[in-house]
């Protein structure tokens, strides 16, 4: 779709402790419904949003982490993770959920759209975006 804009959602905060991550996800879902080119970037404590095995029963909060795994179904095509942020927290790609994506028309499938990228690539991707939502 040629008149769609490149939307980048910059997720910078841990999933719990503040509401930013959850309310960011709500905007992502709406933006995808508007048929924009939606990408997500996880940076700083935002990388914790994608960690596997989240359990919120002890804090009385809704565990919304399963929603990230459905984003491929909402035509979100790219989920980038900042490598330096992962490393600073002792995490690797193996600690993160995998998100499958399939093009319903061409049946092209990508097993995992979560991609770890270095700082130079982070800068490039932000530069290429038309709109950057920062949460």
């Amino acid at each position: 779709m040629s008149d769609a804009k490149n939307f980048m959602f910059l997720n910078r905060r841990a999933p719990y402790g503040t509401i930013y991550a959850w309310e960011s996800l709500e905007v992502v879902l709406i933006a995808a419904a508007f048929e924009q080119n939606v990408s997500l970037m996880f940076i700083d404590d935002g990388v914790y949003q994608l960690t596997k095995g989240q359990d919120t029963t002890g804090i009385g909060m809704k565990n919304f982490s399963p929603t990230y795994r459905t984003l491929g179904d909402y035509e979100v095509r790219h989920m980038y993770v900042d490598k330096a942020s992962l490393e600073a927290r002792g995490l690797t790609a193996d600690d993160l959920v995998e998100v499958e994506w399939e093009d319903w028309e061409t049946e092209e499938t990508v097993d995992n759209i979560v991609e770890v990228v270095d700082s130079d690539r982070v800068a490039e991707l932000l530069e290429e975006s038309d709109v950057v939502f920062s949460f």
Partner: protein
Amino acid sequence: MKFSIQVNEGPYQHQASDSAYQFTKAALEKGHECFRVFFYHDGVLNGTRLTTPPQDDRNIVNNWVELAEKYDLDLVVCVAAAQRRGIVDDGEAERNGKDATNIAPRFRISGLGQLVEAAIQSDRLVVFGD
């Protein structure tokens, strides 16, 4: 240039709303256009007319209202964020069985689609918050 503004923090606790107001006012005075101001997260708390700051302090809510009156600004409060935080207009009060409203004049409650539309329609979306 056509701007849209997103305000992510409440008044007084955080400078985001003041900065957004100053930016919007300056842009309008320079002849730029503001398509919409969208209040999200605790930013929705900028939209209550019940705010009563001390007399020697700025009234952030009234600042927005006056700017909106002068330039016919579209001030939109996110409905989902507003419901969580108790910002209520007539429609919401009726729908959710509330006994009062508190929305400030010139503000309206609507959905996140308004934010996405603003981002699509504007040359720049400027986000204010942490």
